């Protein structure tokens, strides 16, 4: 079992190869990135996101031989994600190696192992027949989760919320689960309430782009209503988080993207270009709605 989304950005001979997630599932195409400007372009155009943007950041630091300057530029392009946190993590290793490329290698060496380990931890607390609702895409970790559940004899079925407007749920998560023959059904974002009411799901699992030590998360738009509904229907809500930071969640900038992107996956989208629209990329889920968070070290809180 595998998913190209588990490691969507690679680095070889000083060239970064970025899986173009906007072309999936129709085409598995990689974009070559050799400069900071090219990296910022693929980042801004949503060619990669989530774990992909973490990898892109580290590799761009490696080709540019800079760290803080890269974090500053990445932050201008995607203001919600904490690139300065990644910068601090990288600099800690760099102080020991004195070489950015070596520091990146060391840092990423254990990442896949850590991600597999934390889903094993999650699998251990999920029901014997886990009916999981998710949103957006957790960069391949749901495939790992399926394997972890299967290995301990638990049954699993996924429901994926389509995640408008970029449809990452439909185009990425549904695709990566389906191609591995993992049981999965696709729903419209607004159908999550009815499937919870009908008890078709018994847990919610999401990723998170940001998290705080207090336990709040910021994740793809549509995560917060899932948590509210899960709370209402008494269904546990778990989030796979990266590196929690000591910050008030309401101080984090929520990225607003161009309104045209709302209509881009609709046929004849130009017809609707005159409509007023807003596109908030992320929402905030307060800690009191979250049953558990599992960080990169496998700690469940």
């Amino acid at each position, binding site marked *: 079992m595998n998913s190209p989304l588990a490691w969507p950005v690679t680095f070889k001979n000083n060239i970064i190869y970025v899986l173009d997630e906007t072309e999936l599932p129709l085409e598995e195409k990689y974009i070559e990135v050799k400069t900071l400007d090219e990296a910022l372009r693929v980042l801004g155009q949503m060619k990669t996101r989530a774990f992909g943007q973490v990898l892109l950041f580290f590799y761009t630091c490696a080709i540019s031989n800079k760290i803080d300057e890269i974090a500053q530029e990445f932050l201008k392009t995607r203001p919600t994600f904490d690139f300065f946190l990644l910068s601090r993590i990288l600099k800690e290793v760099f102080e020991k190696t004195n070489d950015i490329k070596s520091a990146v290698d060391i840092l990423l060496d254990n990442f896949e192992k850590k991600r597999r380990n934390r889903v094993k931890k999650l699998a251990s607390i999920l029901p014997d027949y886990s009916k999981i609702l998710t*949103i957006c895409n957790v960069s391949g970790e749901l495939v790992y989760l399926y394997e972890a559940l299967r290995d301990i004899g638990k049954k699993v079925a996924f429901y994926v*919320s*389509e*995640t*408008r*407007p970029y449809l990452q749920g439909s185009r990425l998560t549904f695709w990566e689960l389906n191609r591995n023959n993992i049981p999965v059904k696709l729903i*419209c*974002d*607004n*159908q*999550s*309430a*009815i499937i919870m*009411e009908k008890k078709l799901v018994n847990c919610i699992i999401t990723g998170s782009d940001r998290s705080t030590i207090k336990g709040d998360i910021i994740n793809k*738009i*549509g*995560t*917060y*209503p899932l948590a*509210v*509904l899960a*709370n*209402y229907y008494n269904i546990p809500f778990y989030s796979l988080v990266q590196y929690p930071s000591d910050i008030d969640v309401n101080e984090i900038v*929520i990225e*607003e993207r161009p*309104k045209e992107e*709302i209509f881009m996956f*609709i*046929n*004849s989208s130009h*017809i*609707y270009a*005159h*409509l*007023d*629209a*807003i*596109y*908030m990329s992320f*929402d*905030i889920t307060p800690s009191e709605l979250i049953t558990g968070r599992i960080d990169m070290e496998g700690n469940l809180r």
Partner: protein
Amino acid sequence: MNLYDINPMSLIWGYPKDSFYKYTKGESFFVSEMRPSFAGLSICQHLNKANTAIYITDNMLGILFYKNKIKDILFFYKNKKDNLYTGICGSLYINVLAKTHNIEIKFYEGLKNEFEEYRKISTDFPFINYYIESCDESFSGGN
């Protein structure tokens, strides 16, 4: 347009009757996309002639509630029987979110056969599936 600059507004859910557009000229609304039918696109085209309409996708409703941007819900139901309203796909989603955020839901009779009515004004997007969802009067608590 920035979310923080927008004052609280009513949100339209479901298919209003034609008379709604006559009596609400000049008013401002959020219009949700209402997947899978994309009802919101048709409604925006109607409203934009004389109203301010801001289009959002359904999964953006959460942050609008969270940021207190939704004044009330104008819920256009398909059928009412006793205390039970039936509406389009996602009706339960909007009703539970409104209830949990203590936002008033105003129930109005909407179009019975919205597909036929709306085909007259918008024909270029596909109707994929259609679901009817029910919710009872307990959702109308609000403020």
